[in-house]
Structures are given as C-alpha cells and as structure tokens.
C-alpha cells in the first residue's frame, strides 16, 4: 500500500549538512499498522513529513529515494496533484493537540474544511458529515460549533483524528499521537484509532518512542536510529527475537513490571550528531559488540529469515551471528 524505497532527506544549514534520514526502506500493507519507533532525533518525524512531501524546502532537501502510495510515486507528482492527495489519500496527525487546531475557527469548520477541499461538498453537506465524524470519534455532534479552547487535550486529539479521517484516507500517519496526553487518555485514543482502522480498513504508520504503544497497536515494527532503520520485522519478531544491539539495548532499558531492580540499564553514550555522522556504523560508540569492521564500513540490511531485517555486521554472511 505504501512503499518507501531508499529515502534520504538532508537539512542543509549553515552549520553543515544534517543527514536526518539515510536510505530507509519500508512498506505498510493495507489494513496493517507499521510502528516507526526510535528515540527523539532518530528521524521519525522527518520520515513522516517526507512521505507527505511537507519537508520545508529551504533547509530540507530530499536527496533520493521513492515514496509509492498505492502505486503512485508521490515525488513525481506536481504540487497541485500532491495537494489533492494530502488529506484525501494520506493524512497525518501531529503530536501536540493543544496547538494543532486553529483557535479562531470552530472545530466543525475545521473538520469540514477537508471535505470542502477534496469532496467539494456544500457548507450544509460538509456540516452534516462533520457531525457524523464527531460522533465517530466520540464527541457529541452538537459540539460542532464550539471552539478548540472549549475542549480538553484528549478531546482535541479526537477532533484532530476526525479532521484527518474526514475524506477516508487509505493511509494515516500518526506522529506520536498520544505523547502529549496522559496514560488513561492514551489508552482511549489508541483504542479509538484501532476501531477506526478496522472500520475504515485503513493502513496506519504509527510513529512513537514508546515501545508500549508499539506493542499495543502495531503489526509490524521498524526501529530507527540516527536516520536509519536498524531493525525491521513483525511485532512478534522484534519483541521476541530482537537481534540488533540497539534494539536489545532499548528493550533492556525499559523497567519491567515483574522485576525489582535498583538501577535501570540505559544504553551508554548519546546518539551521534547528525551533522557529523561517523564513518562506519552509526551505533559504533555505544555498541557492546562493536568490532573493527563496524568502524569502517556501514552495514547493509541483512534478511535473517521471514522478512526480519537487521542492519548490523553481526548478521552479514561472515558475521559473528552466522559463524
């Protein structure tokens, strides 16, 4: 349904070229959810913006790769064609519901806007459909003419979801949709998204740094680190058979419900400066299994069976894991 092939995005600034996303490839199948997980700064949001062609082009440059949505190569489209796809075939939910809504427009108008742009509905028809959408996301339809400041954070996020679903897109990109909300609301929103996904047979690209959310909501997972996808597979593969040292480190640092520990085990070190990426593997300074080749050569994505991909020299033909 969505195929991203070798996408690379840089930001060219005075301080240097920032390699936000380097050569990533993944796909999202119809009706499935792909979780894009990683730390802050890994390049997840840039990837999302890259798919929507919303990268701000003065500093941002899409260096290469393709984004294919339902057979259409998005980067070959003209601006006007792309605009007609945004909102109707693919939509995005942003992170902070408190600032995602225009304070001087009623929420009903904001939901209707998408309908009026893409389906050319009249005001009255759009209003009717907007009320239906509100009901769909669990907000009484009468609240159509209220303003964003009259809603709480969780409800605003529901409104944002309603806006993004207005034209029944095939793909929904959710950029950390629950990060700004508290845990109980988080559960509600995830449940809502799951319901809607099933009802509308939608594909979802769920961007998050919360592995709990990944476990809860995702069918497939891609782990991102410093602009690259270091491990990719189904949720079962990643959670039960994790292979990349970074993934292992990530899961190792999560506190466990059934274990009593004095200290948590973080991954030592920090993510490399994207303007100054090292030669060789990006994870070399923090990797417990780093060896000579890691410092010189960037690893490829190796398929270790059933579509489970790992970007690590350990899994190359002559690597340790295969030795």
């Amino acid at each position: 349904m969505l195929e991203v092939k070798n996408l690379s995005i840089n930001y060219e600034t005075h301080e240097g070229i920032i390699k936000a996303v380097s050569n990533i490839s993944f796909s999202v199948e119809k009706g499935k959810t792909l979780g894009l997980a990683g730390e802050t700064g890994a390049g997840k949001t840039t990837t999302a913006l890259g798919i929507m062609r919303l990268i701000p082009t003065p500093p941002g440059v899409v260096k290469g790769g393709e984004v294919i949505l339902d057979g259409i190569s998005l980067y070959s489209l003209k601006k006007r064609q792309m605009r007609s796809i945004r909102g109707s075939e693919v939509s995005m939910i942003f992170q902070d519901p408190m600032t995602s809504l225009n304070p001087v427009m009623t929420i009903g108008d904001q939901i209707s806007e998408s309908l009026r742009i893409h389906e050319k509905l009249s005001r009255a028809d759009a209003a009717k459909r907007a009320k239906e959408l509100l009901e769909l996301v669990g907000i009484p339809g009468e609240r159509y003419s209220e303003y964003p400041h009259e809603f709480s954070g969780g409800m605003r996020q529901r409104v944002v979801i309603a806006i993004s679903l207005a034209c029944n897109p095939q793909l929904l990109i959710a950029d950390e949709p629950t990060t700004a909300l508290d845990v109980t609301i988080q559960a509600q929103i995830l449940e809502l998204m799951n319901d809607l996904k099933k009802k509308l047979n939608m594909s979802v690209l769920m961007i998050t740094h919360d592995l709990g959310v990944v476990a809860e909501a995702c069918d497939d997972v891609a782990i991102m680190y410093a602009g690259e996808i270091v491990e990719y597979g189904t949720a079962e593969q990643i959670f039960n058979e994790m292979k990349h040292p970074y993934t292992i480190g990530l899961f190792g640092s999560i506190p466990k419900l059934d274990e009593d520990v004095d200290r948590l085990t973080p991954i030592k070190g920090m993510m490399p400066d994207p303007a100054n990426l090292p030669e060789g593997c990006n994870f070399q300074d923090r990797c417990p299994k780093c060896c000579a080749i890691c410092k010189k050569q960037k690893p490829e994505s190796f398929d270790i069976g059933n579509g489970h991909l790992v970007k690590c020299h350990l899994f190359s033909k002559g690597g340790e894991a295969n030795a």
Partner: protein
Amino acid sequence: MKRRTTGITLKKRSQAGEIWRRLRQNKASMVGLVIIIVVILMAVFADVIAPYDYSQQNLAERFQGPSLKHLFGTDNFGRDIFSRILFGARISLKVGLISVIVSVAIGGTLGAIAAFYGGRTDNIIMRILDVILAIPGMLLAIAIAATLGAGLSNMMIAIGIGSIPGYARVVRASVLTVKEQDYIEVARSIGASDARIILRHIILNAMAPILVQATLGVAGAILSCASLSFLGLGIEPPTPEWGSMLSSTRQYISQYWWLTAFPGGMIMLTVYALNVLGDGLRDALDPRLKD
C-alpha cells in the same frame, strides 16, 4: 481573534464576545467609543440635523457668537459653524476611514505575501516599502497632494500611501509568527492551497495588531487631513473640513474664539477618542492568548 458574530450566549463564549467584555471594562475606551459613535451619527445625519446649508453665506450675520440661533456661532462669511462642523465630520471620517482601509488592504496584503513566501519576495517587497518609509510622512503627503492637485480622493491617496509600509510591517511580523503555528501545518497536511491557508487561517489570527494600528491610524489620518487642508492642499473651499476651517479663520483667533475653537475642539476630541479606543483595544486583545 474571532471575527464572525455568532452571538454571545451563555454557552458559546466566542472570542469576539470575550474581547468586547474586556473592552467594556475600560472606562476611558468606552468614553472614546461613545464619542466616536456621536461623531459618526453627526456625519451620517448631517443633512437632517444641520439647521443651515454649510455654504450659505449671510454677510449681515458675520461673527455672531454661539446662541440659540447659531449653536456654534457664525464665521467670517456668516455661515453657521455648527452646520459646517456636521458636514465636516463627514469629510474627516470619510478620509480617515477610507485612507486607512485602503492602506491596510494594500499594506496588509504586501506584508502577508512577504511574510508567507519569505526569501527574495520578502526582500524585494520590504525594501521597496523602506524607500517610502524613509520619507517623512507629512512631507510625503504634502508632496503627493501638491502633485496630484486638490480634491478629496487625491488627499486620501496622499495620506494613504505614507502609511502603507507601517501596516505592511505589522502584518508581516504577525504573519511570520502565525505561519509557524502547528495548525498551519495541519492545514497544509489536509491539502489546503497557499491561498486558502493565507485567507482562512493566517489572516484572522494575524488581525489583532492591525486592528489596533488601524484605529490609531484613523486618528492620524484625520490629523493629516486637517494639516493638509490647513496648508491649503486637498480640500477646496467652501467644503467644510475641520482643518481648513482652522486655517481660514486663523487670524480671528484672538477676537472671535468660536471660529477656531469648535473645529479645533472637534479634531482634538475625535483624535482623542480614537486613541483611547485604540489603546483599550490593544489591552483587550492582549491577554486573550491564554488558551
């Protein structure tokens, strides 16, 4: 800031309602508002209220002080000053409002385009406007009025042009902030065109500073209008304009105070009212960003 008037009910607290409520609490602004409303009524109903025609001369009745027959007295040509003030209100308000509206429209559009597109467009537009800004406002207005000749519309152009860069800057600053907001990105993500984003999302949110600037601008325009007429540019006699009324009766200021006091007083009152209203608006609009 909200512009639509969906009414103020107990349940729907629209933004305009909030702003009005806050403005109401400012006593000075309310006084200003009342004065402006009175002036507007004077202008609108001048035909009905004025006891005499504004150009009707009666040399036998020159220099009569304020009385029941002539509320504000008569001038050096025997014309009723009260009637002239009423019709003068029309002109002052017309010039003030129209020149500001046109300036805001042109300046605002330029500022919004410059801010929205940035880069070279921004540079070109703002540097051209800087050229206009470099010339002192009054001098520019005088030069333009002198070139274009007498007349109401020429005066509006003369006054209007000088204030375009000011409004452009205000709008540009406002738009620069607003366009970075998340909801603008959301609008882009649903496929809204640039035009739609500017017109439906950016303009309303960027309006607040312009509103204050424009209110004060009307005051400034009225003053400029009076100044230009005082200097003999713009309005031609016998059209009553408060400023020209001042200049033509300047020499009688010590003998017949009412000739200059009333037009001068009207200018002062109107400009004062607009200023306090503008200040009150600025305060009322400011703390709204609590949500």
